[in-house]
């Protein structure tokens, strides 16, 4: 076999194996990594819909519960995508078994792609879980499945990349939870999961517009209702720019060997 082809084959098998390992890692403990977050989201759904459903409608005639579900699906997806790459990396770093991934001929690009793809898959599993559990109780349309999927995958990839950055940068678990509690949680909570930003005062509407998470959730919701707070094309643009920037930053860190090969 010509050498270039051989190298590409090795790289491809290496990537697939790392992806497989990362998926197996969360799948073996799916009770904690998939079932628990689904339950979490469902609890949110029960409580909020019970309290608010009769008082609030959105986009004219959509019930609050129906409005809430896509937001909760996306929030769970994003948080779990982040959790997957960040916790896997920090665990491997602390136990030292990260060397088994660093010794083989896996390039930083394959490394990045595998960790992010596994994060996206975990996010999709959890998101789909929330959606499936909610299905029997509400009448949720899906106007544009392709929009739904695009935002799900891109949002998952953005949070997966953030997870790679956090997992590599953090040296202890509490540094990771600081990242999670002070960045990821506030940004998701304030992104319009629980409300349409049109119901906010002007100032907070403006603040929401600098939160990239808002665009992920708003675009995602557009895929269900065909309606959203801002144009889905704008959301798509913002999300795509975020993804490209974060991917570049992460790849740059990995190429330099930041904290992994120092």
């Amino acid at each position, binding site marked *: 076999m010509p050498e270039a082809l051989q*190298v590409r*084959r*090795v*790289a*491809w*098998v*290496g990537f*697939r*194996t*790392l992806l*497989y*390992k990362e998926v*197996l*890692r969360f799948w*073996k403990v799916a009770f904690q990594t998939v079932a628990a977050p689904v339950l979490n989201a469902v609890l949110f759904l029960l409580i909020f819909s019970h309290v608010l459903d009769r008082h609030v409608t959105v986009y004219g005639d959509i019930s609050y519960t129906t409005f809430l579900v896509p937001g909760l699906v996306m929030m769970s997806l994003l948080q779990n995508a982040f959790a997957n790459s960040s916790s896997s990396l920090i665990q*491997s770093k602390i*136990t*030292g*078994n990260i*060397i*088994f*991934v*660093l*010794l*083989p*001929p*896996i*390039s930083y690009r394959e490394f990045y792609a595998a960790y992010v793809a596994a994060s996206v898959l975990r996010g999709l599993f959890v998101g789909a879980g929330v959606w499936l559990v909610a299905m029997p109780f509400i009448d949720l349309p899906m106007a544009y499945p392709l929009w739904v999927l695009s935002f799900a995958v891109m949002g998952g990839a953005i949070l997966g990349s953030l997870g790679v950055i956090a997992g590599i940068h953090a040296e202890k678990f509490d540094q990771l939870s600081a990242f999670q509690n002070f960045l990821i949680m506030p940004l998701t909570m304030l992104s319009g999961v629980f409300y349409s930003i049109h119901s906010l005062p002007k100032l907070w509407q403006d603040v929401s517009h600098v939160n990239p998470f808002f665009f992920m959730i708003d675009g995602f919701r557009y895929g269900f209702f065909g309606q959203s707070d801002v144009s889905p094309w704008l959301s798509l643009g913002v999300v795509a720019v975020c993804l490209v920037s974060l991917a570049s930053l992460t790849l740059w860190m990995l190429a330099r*060997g930041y904290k992994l*090969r*120092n």
Partner: protein
Amino acid sequence: MSIPAIRIDSVTKRYGQFQALAGVSLEVQQGEFFGLLGPNGAGKTTLISALAGLTRPTSGTLQVMGHDVVEDYRQARMHFGVVPQELVFDPFFSVRELLRIQSGYFGIRNNDDWIDEILGYLDLLPKANANMRTLSGGMKRRVLVAQALVHRPPVIVLDEPTAGVDVELRQGLWQFIRKLNKDGHTIVLTTHYLEEAETLCGRIAMLKAGRIVALDSTQALLKAFASHSLRTRLRQPAAGVALGGNDEGDGWVGFGFDAYADVEQLLARLREAEAGVEEIQLGEPDLERVFVEVMHRA
């Protein structure tokens, strides 16, 4: 001459102000069984990490089978297997799963025949399907050896592979590694058990504070540094000391000599001096003495 298995050229490594490697140059030829010795903190693991691409040298270059470990890392890593010093493992998987995954990282699918063979050699077959968490320390160490071999690397580096391995398994492990060496693999070994290094390694480098302070064939090192020794217990130790001996207390006086022919002469002169020889011990040169002496001088 064929490409050296390992070529290290003026490698330095700095951690902040601390100089872990201070300009190391070294070549290991294909097929060698090479020992890398040195006290704790000498820089052995740092050098191995640089070869494996786990750490980037501050300056200098390293090659494995002619492939630069930074520029041509894919080829370099395909040819390189490392048994790390630290006992690390992934608690999520069984031994076999782990070895399959490790094979995949190197682009190898369907590696079960070779995996079974390695597990057999390492006495791990009964544990093939056990979770890593449930293995004893020595077994985990052997899994590390197996992991380093999944891609049949021509160059294998073992960083203290026998730490915490019981005697019987240590013998087995050496037998296996010797066989690998016979089959053409280049072996580099670090160990603090100097008898092991002495019997196994054809050539040895000694490292101290990030520098190579001795580099030669094991035979030459034994010859050059530690002469044979003769210890005598004398009624008149002073007479022995006058002949150039070393007073070791309790009437014992030690002498160094190069060839057995010298012993006769020495004993004759002791008799002449009426030193009164009561006991004699002959000491073979051993690597431990060489090591102590080299570290002392450097």
